[in-house]
């Protein structure tokens, strides 16, 4: 799904499909559809389910979903008991409410999901920490938590099961889209989707739910802008001992912002949690390449050791790995132990990890500050992917790329640190469904610009401010720029920063009635908070530069007078 890019900043200029088709193909028979969704990922499947579960839409529109993959594998997905897929998403309450409304949530296996009742976020350098819980942010149904951690496959399977109930929605899987062309001008220039089976579909509205390298976006001629973060996201399923009787259940998510990138611990079951760790590519490949033992030890260390020691350990691992002689689990354990000793970490504290066996009885007083100790990585669960920022310039195609609309990753790709990527996609689907419904009851043509404009209006800015906030947070925590580091050492500013993360998560999570607009305010607030902080940091820099300037000229003046 992700293509590696060498340059840090890239600009995707849209390339149109130029394939010229033989004339007999253009006039051969085709099927008419009102909505053709390209892509059977969570966003595409959610859109199909949403369109199917609306009475009005189901009666009026013929919908088809096309995916190149074999969706029966997802539909029949049955993982061995006690194992979890490594691709996990935190579904906000508004996303869950929407999935419930479209009747899909009942088909998601609830026992494989876990509420996130509390979240702890802290700065890896200053250790400034924020902790917040579902009850604290005023959610009355505390069992729902702030969000629910769910395997993406579990969600996709649920959506596919929901879709089985609709006669009006056709699923075409194992079917590649060969090319997309435009019908003749007199025929309105509607998109024509040519499948590898040589079937042709004529679509009133073509939906691109086809991911980062969206062919629909290319057809629509919509440019997108973005950059790669020079970071790899490592994902893995982590096995650990259950929380003790005095510690509460495993429903706390932890995220530590390290200069190399944030590391997150997302609970799935009492003994299993999911990892999302973004790191520099060379460190990430060394961590993965050194084997699951080293990774497990380093995960424990990354949540506990001071940043300076982590830097040292990363260097050791990379060095050994690049010499073709990667460190073993016991070697890295020894290294971590030495670092703990040099920082005089109390071996009975929860911050000690190297030589600790599974703890029994009364836990250390600070056990709530860090996640449980990872004992093992589930076999074959380690994977990594490059992190990117990418935003389409428009969500609706116009002119010769008209009758197209983008949702999910085809429209936007975001850093995973706030866990908002898929939730944004679900927000898109909810908004687009409402937009299609409103157009239908007013006799509108759902493929027209006029009908789709409310969708773009509702989602573009909301997504953009969220993406900007997440992007700035990433940059803020990974920067080595002096004034920011100085501000960090003060600590208090960072606390404000974490506050804006908190505000965002709180509002998104708190939007139980799934009102899109209330989400926006939280993120706008967050974006503003981050902006003002970065601005303050820059002011601090210019001020310090300026001050020395003033003193200099002052001295010159004094000397000059003499």
């Amino acid at each position, binding site marked *: 799904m992700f293509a590696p890019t060498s340059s840090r900043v890239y600009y995707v200029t849209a390339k149109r499909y130029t394939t010229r088709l033989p004339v007999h193909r253009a006039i051969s028979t085709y099927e*008419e559809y*009102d909505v053709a969704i390209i892509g059977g990922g969570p966003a595409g499947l959610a859109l199909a389910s949403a369109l199917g579960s609306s009475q*009005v839409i189901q*009666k*009026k529109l013929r919908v088809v979903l096309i995916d190149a993959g074999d969706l029966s594998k997802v539909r029949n997905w049955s993982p061995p008991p006690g194992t979890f897929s490594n691709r996990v998403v935190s579904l906000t309450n508004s996303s869950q409410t929407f999935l419930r409304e479209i009747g899909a949530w009942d088909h998601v296996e609830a026992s494989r999901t876990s509420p996130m009742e509390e979240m702890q976020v802290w700065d890896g350098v200053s250790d400034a920490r924020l902790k917040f819980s579902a009850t604290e942010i005023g959610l009355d149904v505390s069992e729902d938590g702030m969000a629910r951690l769910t395997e993406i496959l579990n969600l996709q399977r649920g959506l596919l099961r929901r879709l089985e109930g609709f006669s009006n929605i056709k699923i075409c899987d194992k079917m590649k889209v060969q090319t997309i062309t435009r*019908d003749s001008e*007199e*025929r*309105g220039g*509607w998109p024509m989707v040519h499948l590898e089976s040589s079937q042709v579909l004529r679509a*009133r509205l073509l939906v691109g739910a086809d991911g980062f390298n969206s062919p629909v976006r290319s057809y629509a001629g919509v440019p997108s802008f973005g950059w790669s973060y020079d970071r790899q996201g490592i994902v893995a399923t982590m096995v650990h001992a259950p929380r003790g009787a005095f510690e509460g259940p495993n429903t706390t998510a932890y995220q530590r912002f390290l200069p190399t990138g944030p590391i997150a611990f997302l609970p799935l079951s009492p003994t299993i949690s999911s990892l999302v760790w973004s790191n520099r590519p060379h460190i990430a490949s060394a961590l993965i390449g050194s084997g699951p033992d080293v990774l497990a030890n380093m995960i424990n260390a990354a949540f506990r050791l001071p940043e300076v020691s982590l830097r040292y350990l990363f260097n050791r691992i990379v060095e050994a790995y690049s010499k073709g002689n990667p460190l073993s689990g016991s070697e890295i354990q020894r290294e971590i132990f030495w670092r703990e000793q040099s920082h005089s970490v109390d071996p009975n504290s929860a911050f000690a990890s190297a030589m600790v066996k599974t703890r029994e009885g009364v836990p250390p007083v600070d056990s709530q500050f860090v996640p449980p100790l990872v004992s093992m990585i589930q076999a074959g669960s380690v994977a990594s992917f490059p992190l990117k920022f990418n935003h389409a310039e428009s969500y609706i195609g*116009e002119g010769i790329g008209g009758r197209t609309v983008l949702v999910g990753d085809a429209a936007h790709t975001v850093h995973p640190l706030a866990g908002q990527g898929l939730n944004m996609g679900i927000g898109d689907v909810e908004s687009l469904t409402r937009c299609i419904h*409103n*157009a*239908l*009851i*007013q*006799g*509108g*043509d759902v493929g*027209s*610009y*006029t009908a789709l404009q409310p969708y773009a*209006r509702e989602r573009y800015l909301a997504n953009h401010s969220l993406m900007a906030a997440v992007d700035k947070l990433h940059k803020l925590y990974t920067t080595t720029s002096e004034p920011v580091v100085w501000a960090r050492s003060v600590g208090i500013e960072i606390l404000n920063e974490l506050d804006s993360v908190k505000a965002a998560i709180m509002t998104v999570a708190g939007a139980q009635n799934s009102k899109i607009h209330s989400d926006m305010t939280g993120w706008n607030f967050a974006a503003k908070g981050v902006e003002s902080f970065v601005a303050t940091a820059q002011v601090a820099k210019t001020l310090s530069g300026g001050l020395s300037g003033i003193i200099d000229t002052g001295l010159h003046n004094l000397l000059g007078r003499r």
Partner: protein
Amino acid sequence: MQASRVVRALQQARLSTAHGTANPSEIAHFSRLSSQWWDEKGEFGFLHKMNPVRVQFIRQKLLEVFREEGNSERTSEMGIIDGLDVLDVGCGGGLLSESLARLGARTLGVDASESNIAIAKIHASADPKLDTLSYLHAPAEALLESPKRYDVVCSMEVLEHVDNPASFLSTCAELVKPGGHLFLSTISRTPLSYILTILLAEDILRKVSQGTHTYSKFIKPSELVSFFQEHRSTQEIFQLSKSWISPHCPPDAPPRTEAEIRGLIYHPLQAKWTLAPRHAWGATDCNYIFWVRKPSLDP
């Protein structure tokens, strides 16, 4: 299908004799612009944006009447217009006609400009879901020759372009079935409407071609109300004594069961139209939409 039979009958009749109230220079003006009808961001962008609001008003008003009459078949979300005979007078490129047809109405769009009808036909032919829609190049007056009458007659943004509004209104009124509905949208004759629709939209911002509107042709809502207070059908003998709107009501506040005037407000920042609330002060000083109901035959 009934609508198309009427079309054929009318085409066979000699239409050239009927000149109608449409102004020849206005017809030429819109014929020149006809290719732009379906450019949603072009000359007619304002109308594209206004269209959902017009449909919204038509649905709301019909729903209100059907509810009051206890017509439960027609009160579902998609059943309000479904199956009604609808005439769109001065349909232009077919913006409103297509919407009404999509909602299930047997729709006939007529326009005095041949190129408008040509564009409307081509556009509709690309859409497989418009089989209840037909178009006819004819002045509205030509339809009087056929006995066919309509449940709903609409004429949107047309009144301000005709030469003899009283005659045009009589024609539209005549084409409505007893108990049927007439929807008109137009522009009021006020300083505000001059500033917004002519000075700003045509002369300064150039969003609309110059010469599209003529101030003196604008009609105030109260003038429409007065017209329907006095109007008597010429052909239906049963109706001779009945006026459409009670003669004694004030012309700015007709009874809600007989007529309604609502302002259409453009919000430039959001680039969208909204339907102003009933009796909102000053809301009908520029664009407005008007509904009036033809008295039914039953006493």
